[in-house]
């Protein structure tokens, strides 16, 4: 059963001063599905996520957010926080929603608890450890209850336990109908959670397959080498 299309890219490309970072790309993302983007450093994964999330505008082509799926949030590899406490950073995000102050605090605290971060509520967010920051960034994204959640290397700095927590959350995401688009370098992780893999290299999509196919029978030589760790 195919779900509705939440986001479409048609002929999207992106260039910066130094050249082209993404070649003409046409793609659909279906509601509630988990897509993992794989590829070497500098392949264009982050650029692709940023384009979808609307952080950067394509040099050419169109990105269509389909009705009912316009709420999106993103976890960055280098999360940015305001010079405030952890709790205040959470509340800041909630200010966009229609809630009274005590409700916001309650929601924020509950969210912190879920990722074992409640004891940091009053710590300055910018002084947390790398893993704590990444957790916080995830919590912040979830507060927005996004239809589409972009995850850019979200477990790069997480310990094994927190990584599992995040992966569980992603798997549960199906029930919440959240569309998840994630870039990672952890092949095992991709295997565990992805329903679909997009393999990208040098700004071009080389392959789009379901996860089992991708790992068992990569269609391209590049993907094959990458999976076997034989890049270059």
């Amino acid at each position: 059963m195919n779900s509705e299309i939440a986001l479409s890219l048609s002929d999207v490309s992106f260039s910066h001063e130094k050249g082209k970072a993404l070649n003409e790309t046409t793609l659909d993302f279906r509601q509630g599905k988990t897509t993992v983007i794989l590829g070497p450093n500098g392949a264009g994964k982050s650029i692709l996520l940023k384009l979808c999330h609307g952080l950067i505008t394509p040099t050419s082509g169109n990105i269509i957010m389909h009705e009912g799926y316009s709420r999106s949030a993103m976890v960055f590899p280098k999360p940015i926080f305001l010079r405030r406490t952890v709790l205040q950073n959470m509340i800041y995000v909630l200010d966009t929603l229609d809630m009274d102050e005590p409700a916001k605090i309650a929601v924020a605290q509950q969210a912190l608890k879920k990722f074992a971060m409640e004891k940091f509520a009053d710590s300055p967010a910018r002084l947390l450890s790398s893993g704590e920051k990444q957790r916080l960034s995830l919590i912040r994204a979830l507060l927005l209850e996004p239809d589409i959640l972009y995850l850019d290397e979200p477990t790069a700095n997480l310990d094994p336990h927190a990584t599992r927590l995040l992966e569980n959350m992603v798997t549960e995401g199906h029930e919440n109908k959240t569309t998840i688009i994630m870039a990672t370098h952890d092949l095992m992780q991709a295997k565990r959670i992805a329903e679909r893999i997009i393999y990208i290299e040098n700004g071009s999509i080389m392959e789009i397959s379901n996860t089992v196919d991708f790992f068992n029978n990569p269609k391209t030589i590049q993907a094959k080498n990458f999976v076997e760790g034989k890049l270059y």
Partner: protein
Amino acid sequence: MAENSDYFVQSLYLIFSLNNDLMEIIGLSLYVSLTALFLATLVGLPIGALLATKKFPGSNILNIVINAFMGLPPVVAGLFVYMMLSRSGPLGILGLLYTSEAMIIAQSILIFPILAALSRQIVEDLNNEYDELFRSLKITASRRIRTLLWESRVSLLTVLLAGLGRAIAEVGAVMIVGGNIEHSTRTMTTSIQMEISKGNLELAMALGIILLFLALSINLMMHFVRNLHQKSQGTYRDE
């Protein structure tokens, strides 16, 4: 020089027997400069922040013009206000010339570019850092500006102090639109000017030193308020 320092000691003595006239003058100086700072801040900071965060047709030119207006001579600001408020001017009927209101208007015009240009720079630097976050959260332009101003408030304090310094030290504009009228528009700086033209250089110097002490106390106060606030929140040490 020995004679000079004698005069100086005399002047200081004269001053420290703080008489009512002096208190009145100090009060007016503070009132005019702080009100002007307040008004200019109210307009200058948002405009600075707007220019820092938005590119729009002409924003580049506006930037350059505001930078240039930091070089607006006080007397020219004064003259402009004079021409507006004088009886033959468009706002003549208000009868504001040679009142403290006129001085406040002139000083506000004078320090507005300083506040706008310098806050633009500081907010722009911070905006570069936070840009992805704001865009990801789809924050509105006005909220972005409010957030940036709040986050950079410690740095902006130095900008406010620069504006206050300019206002409180300024004499050209207040002289023209205020007129240094005794018991009405006489400020510290116009008094200093007057004593200089009388040749009372030591008295002028002593008055100048009082003015500096005034600026110093305001700075000290702000410093302590800031520290207190940081302590009470415990969280505003930047990385």
